């Protein structure tokens, strides 16, 4: 019994330690963010931010677009199979449009970015830790949080919402494709119905979620890298852990945000 309690206590302390570390890292990064901004910040840091935006955003475009297109098509197919029985096939448009802007667009994007970039952050920083490059930075009077994390976080904050919008567009277009082939609904009419069903607050809540997801992915990925102890095998473990933890936390945050918006945002 004592062992069980000890294990529960140890795990609880570990999780609290992790959450605490995430918070400390977040505040430290927010304080260092000024250096990564264009015009007012450090020129080299902004260049690093642009490079990161290309890696997080532009390089992920094909993958996110394809995932969103397939998901939009699947959602339309699955929705239509049920709604057709009630003669409500038209509601597929609402389902796809609202479902993507509020939920699926940001979530699918976050899962893709978590797998691609969250793991890359952990691997990069973890390798730097193993090879003493982080110590090198410190003794050169360069703070790893400012030098490494701030550009990554700023790039994620810009890229992930942009990718979410692309994901929304691809998912909704895939729904339009389905409607065109199943009901011969013209693309213009489909677009008009989509614009009628979506409200500005749907887009805004989706973007708020994607900003939160970007924060989770960037910070979990980097923290896993900073916490690497040991050799190359530890880098591998941190990479896996970054993806698993950030995906879990993204879904948890999604549930919390959805509940908050459900009770606070009136349609």
């Amino acid at each position, binding site marked *: 019994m004592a062992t069980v309690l000890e294990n529960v206590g140890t795990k609880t302390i570990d999780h609290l330690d992790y959450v605490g570390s995430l918070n400390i890292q977040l505040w430290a990064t927010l304080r260092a963010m000024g250096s990564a901004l264009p015009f007012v910040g450090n020129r080299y840091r902004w260049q690093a931010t642009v490079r990161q935006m290309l890696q997080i955003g532009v390089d992920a475009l094909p993958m996110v677009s394809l995932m969103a297109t397939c998901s939009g098509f699947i959602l339309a197919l699955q929705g239509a199979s049920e709604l057709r029985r009630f003669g409500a096939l038209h509601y597929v448009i609402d389902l796809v449009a609202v479902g993507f802007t509020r939920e699926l667009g940001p979530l699918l994007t976050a899962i893709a970015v978590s797998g691609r970039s969250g793991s890359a952050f952990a691997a990069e920083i973890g390798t730097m830790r193993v090879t003493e490059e982080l110590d090198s930075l410190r003794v050169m009077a*360069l703070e790893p949080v400012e030098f490494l994390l701030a550009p990554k976080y700023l790039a994620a904050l810009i890229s992930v919402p942009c990718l979410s919008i692309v994901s929304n567009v691809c998912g909704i277009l895939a729904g339009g494709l389905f409607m065109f082939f199943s009901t011969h609904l013209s693309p213009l009419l489909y677009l008009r119905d989509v614009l009628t069903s979506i409200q500005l607050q749907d887009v805004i809540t989706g973007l708020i979620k994607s900003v939160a997801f970007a924060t989770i992915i960037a910070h979990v990925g980097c923290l896993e890298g900073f916490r690497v102890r040991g050799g190359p095998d530890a880098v591998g473990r941190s990479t896996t852990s970054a993806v698993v933890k950030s995906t879990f936390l993204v879904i948890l945050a999604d549930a919390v945000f959805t509940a908050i918006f459900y009770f606070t945002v009136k349609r």
Partner: protein
Amino acid sequence: MPIISIRDLVVEYEDRRILNGLNLDIEHGETMVLLGGSGSGKSTLLRQILGLERPKSGSVMVKGTDIAHCSAAELKAVRRSIGVAFQSASLFNSMSVEDNVALTLREHTKLAPSIIDLVVWMNLAVVGLADFGKLHPQELSGGMKKRAAVARALALDPEILVLDEPSAGLDPIVAAELDELILLLKEAFQMTVIVVTHELPSAFRIADRIAMLYQGTFSSVGTVDQIKASQNPRVRQFLDRVPGDMAKAPAVAAYFEKYLQGPEVQQ
């Protein structure tokens, strides 16, 4: 006043005492070699001098600043006057050699790019790598990496140069070249040089004074001649390459005896 002053320094890792009340003064322009076997605490002492870890008690004063208890800004200021080349070189693999050397100049000075290029070229020329600036660290040999790390350490014209195991893993010719380079740097730039090593020929060639570490304490501190003439049993064992107990047959037999009577075998 010494440039580095260590007083009653105690370092522990999880109740294991690594450094046990060290006292040492390093004067301006002096080459101090920290000598000792594996696990004697040399690298730990170096990390304390660089402010990478905090001691359990005692102080490390660098240029009059207690780096274990100073503010982050003071620590940064001290670190700007220290150039460090780690044992593994710790060059940034994502950057070319010249970008590695230019990094601190870009970050900490407002020099024009053309001046930075000139300083980088000069530093690379000093270490004999003027023609290799465009290469990445992974394209260099072990000796070239170490020299590139020295060039990077020299970039900000530091008052203190710290070299961790500069000749470890190098062939005798390259190791001798590095020794000559250290002597040249000291003479040309009047730097205080701290070298961590367990290579005796190298230590005797470059040192003004040698501090011999054994199990977390200084067993002897003195000039090269004083160390060579020392009758301290630990110093003599190290200089005369006398094997420790671990390699002797009775000790090996004792280990086996202890293991056979241990709980794992008894079960």
